[in-house]
């Protein structure tokens, strides 16, 4: 092999080496870009899950509050009935006592 051929071979080999390094660099960029996209996707997923759980918590809290409020309303309704019954039973007594109080002030 002549000296020129040897130099030629080395030049070709260095070109191939540069190609290998360049391809690796491009692949590395691609890996980082993909990782960045994936990180963003993961972030969106985690946050979306948190927002969904937030909505669930609010909905559940409202439903529980409605249930408690309904209980309170039932009790109120019962008390109103009790008041009305007491009024019918004790009205005359209350009027009599009040008239006596006014007359004897």
């Amino acid at each position, binding site marked *: *092999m002549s000296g020129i051929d*040897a130099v030629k*071979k*080395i030049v070709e*080999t260095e070109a*191939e*080496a*540069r190609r*290998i390094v360049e*391809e*690796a660099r491009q*692949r*590395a960029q691609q*890996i*980082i870009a*993909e*990782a*960045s996209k994936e*990180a*963003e996707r*993961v*972030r969106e*997923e*985690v*946050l979306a*899950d*948190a927002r969904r*759980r*937030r909505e669930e*918590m*609010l909905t*559940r*809290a*409202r439903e*529980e*509050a*409605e249930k*408690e*409020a309904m209980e*309170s*309303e039932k*009790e*109120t309704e019962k*008390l*109103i009935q*009790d*008041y*009305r019954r*007491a*009024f019918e039973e*004790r*009205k005359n*007594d*209350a*009027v009599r*006592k*009040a008239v006596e*109080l*006014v007359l004897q*002030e």
Partner: protein
Amino acid sequence: MSESLDKLRNRILSDARLKADETIREANEKAEQSRKDAREKAEREASEILARAEAEAEAARRSIISSRIRANRLRLLEERNKIVQSVLGDVEQRLSTIATTGNFQDIVKRLATEAIDAIGSDHPTVRIGFPKASGDKFNLPAGALPRGATIVYDDKLAEELGGVVASDPEGKIAYRNTFRARLDRLDRELLTLISSTIFGDQQPDQTQKVVATAA
């Protein structure tokens, strides 16, 4: 020479591959770190969202319960008030027909005596008036009122459910002892009496239990 040239070429390629592998490895590490950082950051944000959500949920729950409890309490108070007002209406009705009762003269005498005592005059003017009564009904017994008292029948007092107004001769001091005035003076006492008679121990506090759980 050919052998050493091959060695040189192999070394060049080997170095290039090593460098390429190192570049890829670094990229993979960076990528992994980037994913990890993103997940950790997202989880921190998610925790904050959920912590705020817990507070929001509790606030929403309290808001709903307390507004409904207020509304219920108001309903109870309105119902009690309606009942008490109804009783007061009956009391007024009863007082307005007092002239038709047997002890009417005694009542008039008591009202007049109180009014005269209140103004402290020996020559008071005593105006008397009741619904369903006329002037000739006031045949007060002798000595029922001070000797110097002047009795005047006043129809207008019937508008105040009836009663007596005593004033000194100059008309500077007057004491209204009408049923309306007595009702006004006894306002709080009457409300308490009627309320305790009708409702006894029934207090509008049934919602306290719910308030306690909401607090």
